[in-house]
């Protein structure tokens, strides 16, 4: 094992001003429109001027042929630090982590982390076939089901290995719907019962309708700056207690049974001086329920293969024994492209800054965000995690 320099902590960094541009099923607007609305909301909520933003990260799948630099001219920004992070479900954690380092190093003082995607009628189909070279060559010509078929393999394999039943995934979906209704989701207005979950039509067995997220348009954004700056601006903020990322881990596993968190997990908790038992809530990336199960196992809340027992032992509502995806997650709000990978960060910020109206986790002081993204062929490549806390 190569000797690795001990990684430095993230002291002094504030993450704040979670904003959401309301999701719509379809939009005739382009990605720039949603990016613009998000940046405008950041400015209005923070009281900053546009010129105060000197760092920018952009996460979007529908921005092509542009990248982040095109956003600077489109919105008239002039950052001295820029990053383009279209990494799906890991986008939020990766943006936060990079922005935090930029602020610590003095490369930027206020970083806007923005994720936005539009969704036209038929644009989802067009994206699937061109998502990656491997997707074009080796998955899209096989049924063209998009990620459903791949997660069907992963879910079926997980169920066979761990003994998980559909009810175990269903319990999570039901509780997330309860969370969504607690504050008022745009798309879902009725509770989901376990019977409805089990009776839903099959999409790609064992994946059924309520295991899938609905593609939609929308945006999420937040700001990263020093704690001092946030205090001067009078902004409620969360601190970064630790954060990790890992890509293409365990590449010899013939089928994905785990994400890459376990490789770096000791670092994550050591940075924070905390244990999994200290975590008050988890905002996990939830494109499919099995992915949440893998985060519970990968982030240290239970051992590999024990996800089903954990599911049976807990309630996941905001007032339950293990508050999880307290805004309802993507399963109950839709997936606005790369913005879906920011939802977890923003909900953690709202919980830690007392803005989680109707769904506040009582006494929340330490929250964990799980990021999981980018199926270029048969598995998610990007994993990340961030422990966020209330200021000391």
């Amino acid at each position, binding site marked *: 094992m190569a000797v690795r320099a001990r990684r430095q902590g993230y002291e002094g960094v504030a993450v704040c001003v979670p904003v959401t541009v309301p999701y719509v099923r379809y939009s005739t607007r382009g990605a720039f429109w949603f990016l613009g609305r998000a940046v405008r909301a950041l400015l209005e909520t923070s009281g900053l001027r546009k010129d105060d933003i000197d760092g920018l990260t952009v996460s979007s799948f529908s921005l092509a042929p542009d990248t982040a630099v095109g956003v600077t001219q489109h919105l008239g920004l002039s950052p001295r630090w820029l990053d383009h992070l279209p990494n799906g479900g890991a986008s939020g954690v990766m943006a936060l982590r990079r922005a935090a380092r930029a602020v610590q190093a003095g490369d930027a003082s206020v970083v806007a982390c923005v994720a936005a995607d539009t969704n036209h009628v038929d644009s*989802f*189909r067009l994206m*699937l*076939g*061109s998502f990656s*070279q*491997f997707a*074009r*060559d*080796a*998955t*899209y*010509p*096989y*049924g*063209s*089901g*998009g990620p*459903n*078929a*791949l997660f*069907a*393999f*992963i879910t*079926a*394999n997980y169920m*066979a290995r761990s003994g998980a039943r559909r009810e175990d995934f269903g319990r999570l979906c039901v509780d997330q719907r309860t969370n969504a209704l607690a504050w008022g989701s745009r798309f879902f207005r009725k509770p989901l019962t376990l019977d409805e979950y089990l009776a839903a*039509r*099959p*999409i*790609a*067995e*064992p*994946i059924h309708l309520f295991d899938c997220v609905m593609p939609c348009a929308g945006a999420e954004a937040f700001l990263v700056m020093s704690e001092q700056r946030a205090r001067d601006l009078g902004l409620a903020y969360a601190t970064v207690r630790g954060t990790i990322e890992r890509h293409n881990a365990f*590449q010899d596993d*013939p*089928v994905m049974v785990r994400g890459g968190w376990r490789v770096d997990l000791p670092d994550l908790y050591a940075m924070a001086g905390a244990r999994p038992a200290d975590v008050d809530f988890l905002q996990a990336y939830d494109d499919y329920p099995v992915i949440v199960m893998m985060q519970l196992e990968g982030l240290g809340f239970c051992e590999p293969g024990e996800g089903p027992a954990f599911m049976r032992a807990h309630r996941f509502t905001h007032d339950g024994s293990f508050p999880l995806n307290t805004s309802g997650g993507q399963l109950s709000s839709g997936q606005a492209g790369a913005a879906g990978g920011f939802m977890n960060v923003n909900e953690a910020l709202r919980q830690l800054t007392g803005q989680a109206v109707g769904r506040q986790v009582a006494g929340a002081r330490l929250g964990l965000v799980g990021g999981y993204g980018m199926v270029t*062929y*048969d598995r998610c490549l990007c994993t990340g995690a961030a422990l966020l806390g209330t200021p000391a």
Partner: protein
Amino acid sequence: MTMPLMRPRRKNPVLRTPQMNLPPWARGRVALGLTAAAAEGRLELQVCQDCGAVQYPPREACHACVSARLRWRAQSGAGRLLAATTLHHSNDLFFRERLPWRLGLVQLDAGATLVVHLHGDVTAPGQPVRVTARLDRAGRAVVIALPDPETPHMADDKMLREMGCDPKFRKVLVSDGKTPLGQALVRAFVAAGADIVWVGHAEPWKKLPGFDALSALPQVTLVPLDVTDGRSVAELAGEIAGKVDIVVNNAEVHRAHGIAARRGTDAARAEMDVNYFGLLRLAQEFGPALKGRSADGVAHAAAWVNLLSIYALANFPPHGTYAASKAAAHSLAQCLRAEMRPAGIRVVNVFPGPVDDEWNQNLPPPKLAPDALARAVVQALKDGLEDVYPGDVAQEWLERWREDPRVLERELAAGG
């Protein structure tokens, strides 16, 4: 277990004939290596020449040692099923029209994990499978997993039938039934379960051995067809083109001589008129009809077979003018393939070595028996191949041609 395919019911002439929507055909240049091998019936994957790692999906650098020295190499395809799913939803019209559709995740013994189209008889994770590459309706290679060992009626599997052009329950036109090869083809299609075999005969007054027995077969219908006569081709097309599912063009004139051995151009002109213009006339009359019926039920129009010659690749001077006419036909067949592809009709080009018939009397063995060639054609249709090189001579020529066509040309000029 696969249920044997039942004879399709007669088509209701009032109903609209469904049109073809091809499966996704976009592939990167590197990935087309899979298609090139699948066209000849082989599963080839990239293998790193430095470390031996097998690669999938196709790529530009080895995932194990980052070498760029990747070569396409034949694979056994042995593996086991990791997981299976049945799609009930698809974003693509081709699959949407064929739901439910089964897919599998397979680990090859050679190491790679593959997303595959899954045969109906592969059901349980851990089950051994044989992965092979097939051309799909878009003419692009896909990997499919078959049960290992084979199962009864496995060729009738819905997915597998989409990947091939199985003659079972299909209606076939053989353009010349008079030659030994023509007769062998008719018998082979009848044996393969073809519904109707229309057999062209250009000169009805000629009585040839075996022809009476052939025409007595219940599946066989003799039809007048002279491919040198545009009107004859058009009249037959007017009668049956809307029903033919597989066209097999084996009509040919073969005279054994080069340039100096015979004066004038009459024989060479006759070769061109049948071997090249005959194909053109047939394709103009029957091609559009085939394209219009390429999604017409379980026995839809499927394929066009050209009996070419290995001499189409390189001129064999003792049969020089014949070779030239076959080279012309090969070039035209490439054009036909391009024009048929948007409809999902497969153009199968067959490049046999010398057939054991009267026009090759003076050639030494090995020569290809007409029955063996006919069986190779039917098997190629079942396996969905595009390019077929039957017989030892054809295989050897192909290998030499691939190594260096200029060397082969000089060897042939020197006598073989």
